[in-house]
């Protein structure tokens, strides 16, 4: 069975991806759901919840409202809250029941916008896909709806960071390290979608020379920015000593040539018998490439999540289920994965635990390493 697991957990869902991507932008995100989505998101998927006030709510959907199709209550409730709290925008998405009854989120958003004058948009989540699908749709919408066209290009070389959320980068300083790495390599940062930048800063994203896509959830937004402003993108996370240098060169080259690329997927590869890195494809691919360069070992990606062909290298494999993971792990020379994958890694295959917030939530949050620019040898040894 591909869609069941005896012992592995499940990745964060699309609704969490939406909330996480929009969290710092001053908007109001509403999940049309009865109860669980909000507590799951705020407990397991959102490390900023205690310290950083953000308007993320559920609608409190009931059986009667679902059966009777009472969308007006949802519209009224959102409009009341928006009038009271004055968000910069309203985003509405849904859990499984609204998907099942065919709730039209775009129409609901249009009604809210008309009633309140606040920009609003709907997102087609269902609670049945991973966080990357929700993050992707949310960031793409931000890029299309809020990035201004009349922004002059920056004089100095500059970049946007696209696809950064705590689900992939936690709050351990990794995103700040990427910002420093950009500065150290001569890039000004225009904005980060979507950690540490305001909506006003993101509105100026069109002025950057290049976009650094740091997760598969940022790819659609980067493509939207390329379409709107002609900005090229480069997919990769500056992990490892050698790969971070190479990525800086690729970024500079793309800024000059206007050509997009995915150095995270440019690997010799070696999932079979080599090091297998499990996770989101841009980060895992970057780590695999870094392992090739820092350790001189073949490495490949085992991807349990949605990705795009351009983000994968030949020999990378999808592992949609627990059995796929176990089977692939048995053939690997070593496995880098979240610690909760350990029970399906055979004895004798070296296992390197690398916690991933989108998988194990807050279980290992305190021990998520910041690998930006670090030589992997030291981390692997530890």
């Amino acid at each position, binding site marked *: 069975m591909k869609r069941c697991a005896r012992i592995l957990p499940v990745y964060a869902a699309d609704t969490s991806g939406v909330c996480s991507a929009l969290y710092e932008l001053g908007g109001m995100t509403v999940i049309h759901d009865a109860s669980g989505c909000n507590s799951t998101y705020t407990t397991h998927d959102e490390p900023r*919840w205690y310290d950083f006030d953000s308007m993320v709510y559920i609608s*409190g959907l009931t059986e009667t409202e679902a059966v009777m199709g009472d969308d007006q209550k949802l519209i009224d409730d959102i409009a009341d809250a928006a009038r009271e709290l004055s968000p910069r925008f309203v985003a509405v998405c849904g859990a*499984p029941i609204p998907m*099942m009854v065919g709730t039209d989120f775009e129409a609901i958003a249009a009604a809210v916008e008309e009633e309140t004058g606040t920009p609003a948009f709907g997102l087609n989540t269902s609670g049945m896909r991973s966080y990357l699908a929700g993050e992707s749709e949310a960031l793409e919408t931000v890029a299309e709806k809020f990035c201004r066209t009349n922004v002059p290009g920056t004089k100095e070389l500059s970049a946007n960071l696209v696809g950064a959320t705590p689900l992939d980068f936690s709050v351990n300083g990794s995103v700040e390290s990427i910002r420093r790495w950009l500065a150290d390599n001569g890039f000004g940062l225009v904005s980060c979608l979507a950690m540490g930048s305001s909506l006003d800063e993101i509105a100026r994203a069109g002025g950057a020379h290049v976009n650094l896509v740091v997760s598969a959830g940022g790819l659609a937004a980067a493509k939207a920015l390329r379409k709107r402003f002609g900005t090229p993108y480069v997919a990769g996370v500056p992990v490892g000593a050698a790969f971070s240098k190479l990525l800086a060169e690729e970024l500079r080259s793309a800024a000059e040539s206007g050509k997009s690329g995915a150095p995270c997927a440019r690997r010799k590869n070696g999932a079979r018998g080599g090091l297998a890195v499990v996770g989101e494809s841009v980060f895992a691919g970057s780590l695999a490439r870094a392992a090739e360069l820092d350790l001189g070992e073949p490495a490949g990606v085992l991807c349990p999540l949605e990705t795009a062909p351009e983000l994968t290298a030949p020999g990378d494999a999808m592992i949609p289920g627990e059995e796929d993971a176990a089977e692939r792990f048995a053939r690997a020379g070593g496995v880098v994965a979240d610690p909760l994958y350990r029970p399906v890694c055979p004895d004798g295959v070296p296992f390197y635990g690398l916690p991933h917030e989108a998988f194990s939530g807050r279980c290992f949050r305190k021990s998520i390493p910041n690998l930006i620019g670090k030589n992997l040898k030291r981390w692997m040894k530890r």
Partner: protein
Amino acid sequence: MLKKLGRSGGRGGPEVRIRDARFPEPFASGLEYNAPARGPWNIVHTGMLIPGAHQIFACAQGCLRGVVLTAAEMNAMDRMSWISVSESDLFDGSMERNIIDGAADILDRIDPLPPAVLLFISCIHLFAGCDFEMILGELRGRFPRVDFADCYMNPTMRKSGLTPDQLMRRQLYSLLRPRKKDEKCVNLIGNDRPTDESSELLAMIREAGFGLRDITLCGTYEDYQKMAGSAVNLTCLPAAAAAGEELERRLGQKHLYLPLSYSRQEIAENYAKLARVLGVEAPDFSGAAARAEEALGAARRVVGDAPVAIDYTATPRPLGLARLLLEHGFAVRKVYADVFSGEERADFDWLKQNAPELAVSATVRPEMRFAARVAPGEKVLAIGQKAAYFCGTGRFVNIVAGGGMYGFDGIARLAGLMADAYLREKDTRTVIQYKGLGCESCL
């Protein structure tokens, strides 16, 4: 002009004086905020009370995430499995087959088989008319040595009958098989943690020569099954009453609902009812009542006139507790509750009359996201995690669902905890993050 029924036209704020509050819903419904207080138990925590039982959840990824990570944080992933539901499952006729095949696949990989499986379906299955009986029938046929319980994670139906919490507590005992009755045995049903040994309730049962069984004390699945042999089931929490009623209907065990209360009169009435069922004289509790009074007095001397706030997660009777404390001179200023239990009507009316300025605050209203969480120069004593969070205080009593305290002894113990909480501050942020108070945690 026609006006839509059911809406007042204005929602009011997230806080109201009790003199102006409506019963049982003081606030209009709307969007909901989720405060970061994680102590109350959820259905996974409750399900883990059956020794050796394995839980299998069939639901969408978003719904799975919370329950699976609940188990992960409890270091109990070896007792939790899942089957995810895709959009197509709901429309192509494969819904039941996928659950059967998924559950069978999971069980085929568990050696030895668990004695019991709690199989959870979700809102979408109920909306789609899932034939759960057929699923369970086939699984029981394939795994005859495993007891299967039908369980539900259906928050969409939370206002359409039993709440998910009530339903879970009821289904928790659905695997009990009829067995010969032991007339000298009593069960405590529906609690998350053992009732304090010092309570008069337990003393009465033991002194009357009755044995006591409680799922929180069961070490093995057979211990759990022995609960079916008890003659009487006692429930004390409102969420547990449905379990007691169901067991009376199914196994013929007498059900006695003795609600957790802070009223001297109601406590005495509860004990009188219990005495009748046990066939003993109602003991004289004047000593216990006096000790409760002394403890309240001692706590009052420690807490002084410091403001006190109470929330609904600490006790199912926050208004009853507010009344008790006000009657004993405490400066109760605020009760955090989004809705009141019907059992609180008398206390609500009393407070309206005698403490009209008492504030009632919502916890889920959208404005609560921005509620001030730092008390301005005051040492606030909170009872419950949500009250502690909203009041920004480290002086709080860390309990959920009554905290296992019952009767006069419970009042005395709670008073002791209040004094202790006032004198020794806690790291609120850290303490309230642990999910399922009292459960193991990897955090």
